[in-house]
């Protein structure tokens, strides 16, 4: 079986009458890192919370590793670890105690060696016996991750794991996430930072207003939409693009002072060298060049606005 999580026709209408999810269909592949992207209020947390058993679905089904999350909740939930979006931690307990609690809660016998390893992986070793109230926000985030990992889940949900986390910890976290994927853990994360998804994910799903609007391999998505633009600021304005430059994806600004060349980052060759050569042949001089890429950010913004 390929899909480790299979969401079918899932809807959620909150008691307030607000529909947070509309007929979501989504398959997460075994062993992948899946990034769920969407603006505030898109329904990311709602989706995750339903899969994890914190929110009741209004309709539809979810299978986790083949187990229905409601009928067969024990089997389903024991595979899943969740790092929630909010920093909800205990206060008076120590880091180690709270991890032992989590492990037991998920039905695993105590394993001090494993707990020690997770503490080490998350650089929490020196805080292991500190009360959580004495930790900084970033450390609390790590504690939440440590708790989620304490029962050795093979599916891990990270709901905005990098909120309030510094660069260093972010890098450590991605390293850890990749390491976990090596060990066969499937990771589903949500984020607002598109570069993050670009950096870490194998596949990306985009959700907006409770609907999945796109799911695609990251590389395919980037190839499909990852156009890059080269802007040339001309020394002297020209009235039209010379005939000799036909066949190239060129655009001239209204005043004739800027030339925009669009090319595919993932193409065989960019064609920049030949463009510059041919411009030279036609006696077109430029004083500056600026290159920009359409990042996931742009893709995302355009997709979301298309839907509106």
């Amino acid at each position, binding site marked *: 079986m390929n899909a480790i999580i299979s969401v079918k026709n899932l809807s959620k209408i909150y008691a307030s009458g607000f529909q947070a999810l509309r007929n979501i269909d989504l398959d997460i592949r075994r062993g992948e890192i899946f990034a769920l992207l969407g603006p505030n209020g898109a329904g990311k947390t709602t989706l995750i919370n339903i899969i994890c058993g914190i929110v009741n679905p209004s309709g539809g089904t979810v299978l986790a590793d083949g187990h229905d999350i409601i009928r067969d909740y024990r089997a389903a939930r024991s595979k899943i670890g969740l790092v929630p979006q909010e920093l909800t931690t205990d206060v008076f307990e120590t880091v180690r*105690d709270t991890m032992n609690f989590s492990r*037991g809660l998920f039905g695993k016998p105590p394993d001090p060696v494993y707990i020690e390893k997770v503490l080490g992986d998350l650089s929490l070793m020196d805080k292991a016996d500190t009360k959580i109230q004495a930790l900084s926000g970033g450390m609390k985030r790590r504690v939440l991750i440590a708790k989620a990992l304490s029962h050795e889940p093979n599916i891990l949900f990270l709901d905005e794991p990098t909120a309030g986390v510094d660069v260093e910890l972010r890098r450590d976290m991605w390293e850890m996430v990749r390491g976990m994927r090596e060990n066969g853990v499937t990771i589903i994360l949500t984020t607002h930072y598109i570069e993050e998804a670009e950096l870490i994910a194998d596949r990306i799903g985009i959700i907006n207003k409770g609907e999945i609007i796109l799911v695609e391999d990251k590389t395919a998505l980037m190839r499909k939409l990852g156009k890059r633009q080269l802007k040339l600021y001309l020394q002297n304005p020209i009235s039209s693009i010379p005939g000799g430059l036909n066949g190239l994806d060129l655009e001239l600004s209204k005043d004739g002072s800027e030339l925009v060349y669009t090319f595919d980052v993932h193409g065989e060759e960019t064609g920049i060298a030949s463009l510059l050569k041919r411009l030279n042949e036609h006696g077109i001089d430029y004083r500056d060049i600026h290159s920009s890429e359409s990042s996931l950010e742009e893709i995302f913004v355009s997709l979301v606005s298309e839907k509106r």
Partner: protein
Amino acid sequence: MNFYAIRSIYIFEMARTWRTLMQSIASPILSTSLYFVVFGAAIGSRVGDIEGVSYGAFIVPGLVMLTIMSESISNASFGIYLPKFTGTIYEVLSAPVSYIEVLIGYVGAAATKSIVLGTLILATARLFVPYSILHPFWMAGFLLLTAVSFCLFGFIIGIWADGFQKLQMVPLMIVTPLTFLGGSFYSIYMLPPIWQKITLFNPVVYLISGFRWSLYGVSDVNVAVSLGMTLLFLAVCIAVVWWIFKTGYRLKS
């Protein structure tokens, strides 16, 4: 059965108890001692024996029950309200546990604490009045049943409450009056006939009466009825908790 989960919750809750041990023990023992001084010694000396039991001894079971009930409710309600308040409840909701396991963990820990306290009160009482225990086995049984039932009740209140105010309201507005009017300090036969009838609607009467019977062999109502009513209360609480977990009432949106 997820025994590790039960164990985890129990240990976690007991750790909370140990951290606050002094205030948990000090305040009930102090207030009970005050009751003994005021009711047992000062007033009690002017009140004759009730059904052959000296007044000081007569109020012992009521005071123990008073502590057990109020401690059970406050411990259990706080135990489940706190994770709801801080949000850490997400973990319990996402864990592979059934409501039975959650219940055994939380209620077990809360009941342990109130039974320990009840026993301490019983021991403290011994400093003030000599008494003997006629049916120790039944006494332990009533102690346990009452502690468990009221912890369940407290658990329900903790889930229902959406503010600290509500958390304190029920014990203060309902349970304290019922306990005081439930024959802690008097035999219901000392009441006018009409009030004797009305009092029988108070479930606490049965608990105190049953407990008193296990100590002295005297009771306001038949001990079998006491036991039956206690079990009934227990069953109602279990049913409510089952419903809460089934629907996710106040736990899941």
